[in-house]
């Protein structure tokens, strides 16, 4: 697997020399592999937001480096803007960034700054809207006349429109109801499959990460706690819970069943897997 982004011994300290000095990220090393859908988990204060702002050069490392395609993104500081076209970042509650008169114009902002115009620009806008699950009929409307969920799709479309090699989404489902979350995540998964690019999904929802991520990196207190496939990571349920993180509910149920003497594989993380594991146990003669 090829690395597209490598974070090497990254430290970021806020408020150096003031009473509020604090290293949000400390000596952190992690990789993002080309083409994967990476899940990034960490509690509030774990350094997640700081870390992702380093991936597209919004923040500069206090120590350490961030490599994109093997090159330090700060090698030529004047060209840092180019990094932001290649690594697209969607902040939490992105609807707050909308500013244009129409959804169409708002989505156009990024690609226009990249030099697109005419038919190419139009096609790019419409394709991005489609990827984000935004109905074309909404493109002429003012973003402020749209519902919260629709606004969010406009904001996501605006970043997708720059065709970033790496798309980073910070809690894209935050504040949406279960159905809204599911629809949005399905769109992101479909986008990832169709475009074949790399997606980094930051989430608090273990169930969501379990469902969509190929690989997971767990952050705790500014460092990488562990990384691996969902199966590998959720097998360390106790360690995750000790770090103040959740595990998917099915995994917690499996852990509780084991505690009560049922020999269930604790590395299950969906309802379907746990059901199958229990049915198999029954067939094999449970006790």
């Amino acid at each position: 697997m090829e690395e597209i982004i490598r974070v090497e011994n990254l430290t970021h300290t806020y408020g150096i020399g003031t009473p509020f000095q604090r290293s949000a990220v400390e000596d952190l090393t992690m990789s993002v592999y080309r083409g994967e859908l990476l899940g990034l988990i960490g509690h509030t204060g774990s350094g997640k937001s700081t870390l992702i702002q380093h991936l597209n050069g919004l923040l500069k490392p206090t120590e350490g480096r961030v490599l994109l395609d093997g090159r330090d993104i700060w090698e030529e500081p004047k060209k840092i803007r180019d990094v932001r076209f290649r690594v697209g970042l969607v902040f939490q509650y992105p609807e707050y960034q909308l500013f244009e008169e129409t959804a169409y114009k708002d989505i156009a902002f990024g690609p226009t700054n990249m030099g697109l115009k005419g038919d190419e620009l139009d096609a790019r806008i419409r394709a991005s809207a489609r990827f984000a699950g935004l109905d074309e009929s909404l493109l002429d409307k003012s973003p402020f006349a749209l519902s919260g969920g629709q606004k969010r799709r406009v904001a996501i479309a605006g970043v997708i429109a720059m065709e970033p090699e790496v798309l980073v989404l910070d809690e894209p489902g935050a504040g949406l109801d279960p159905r809204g979350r599911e629809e949005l995540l399905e769109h992101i998964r479909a986008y990832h499959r169709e475009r074949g690019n790399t997606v980094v999904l930051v989430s608090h929802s273990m169930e969501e990460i379990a469902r969509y991520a190929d690989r997971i990196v767990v952050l705790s207190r500014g460092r990488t706690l562990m990384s691996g496939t969902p199966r590998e990571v959720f097998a360390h349920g106790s360690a995750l819970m000790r770090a103040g993180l959740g595990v998917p509910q099915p995994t917690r149920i499996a852990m509780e069943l084991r505690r009560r003497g049922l020999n269930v594989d604790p590395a299950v993380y969906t309802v379907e897997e746990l059901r199958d594991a229990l049915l198999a146990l029954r067939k094999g003669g449970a006790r």
Partner: protein
Amino acid sequence: MMSTIIQTDNLSYAYPGDEETAATVALDGVTLKIERGSFVVVLGHNGSGKSTLAKTFNAVLLPGGGTAYVDGMDTKDESLLLEIRRRIGMVFQNPDNQIVANVVEEDVAFAPENLGVPTAEIRQRVDDALEAVGMTEFTLHAPHLLSGGQKQRIAIAGVLAMLPECIVLDEATAMLDPMGRREVLNVIEGLHREKNITVVLITHHMNEAEHADRVLVMNDGRIAMDGTPREVFSRAEELAAYGLAVPDTVALLRALKASGVEVATDALTVEDCAAAIVAAFS
């Protein structure tokens, strides 16, 4: 004292439209009674009217049609507003939007100060409120430097300083991570248990209803379901139709039952679910 603390009679509300859009009907004839000391969870997908309903409970919004009563007082009566808001405290979704002071204790003191409570009593109320939410060590801290869960606990303390009978939480955990959500819920559950405060929790997180007495499901501005958590969560297809999902515990039990295992399907918590499975397997 009346046993009903909040009552609505055929309550309706529509958000006004503009040149481009028609008015949006948010509540379409809601009639309900909330008993003192109860723990009610109101579930519903976004747009179901649950937040609008919550805002009519202490006159943040006034009914478009029908009536809302707090402790027998009509919320449309302006002269009773202070009394109504003394009884019903509200905590909103965005932790940052509820901070008004630079120091935690000043933020918590805001309401009693405005209510003209004597200074010595304010001190007592602030200290008691911060203790009730487990934030005593942050008394002199800067509120904006706290985590989301901590900020929401300060918001709750600010409400508690009014000695309300009822706290309405309008998606108060939506912007928090699991740990912050747990903190806030623990505080709320504790307040209900120990001080008998009536709790109305608006949310779309099913598992927050674990310890509720009663669950109301809203859909299209109406109450679609009303019962105990067990009763409501046993109706999975209906919940799905209303844009909600059963917790994974119930989903697992139902999946096992559908595959032929004789198991109870109404256990909500992880512990009860595991117990039900172990019982079915022995």
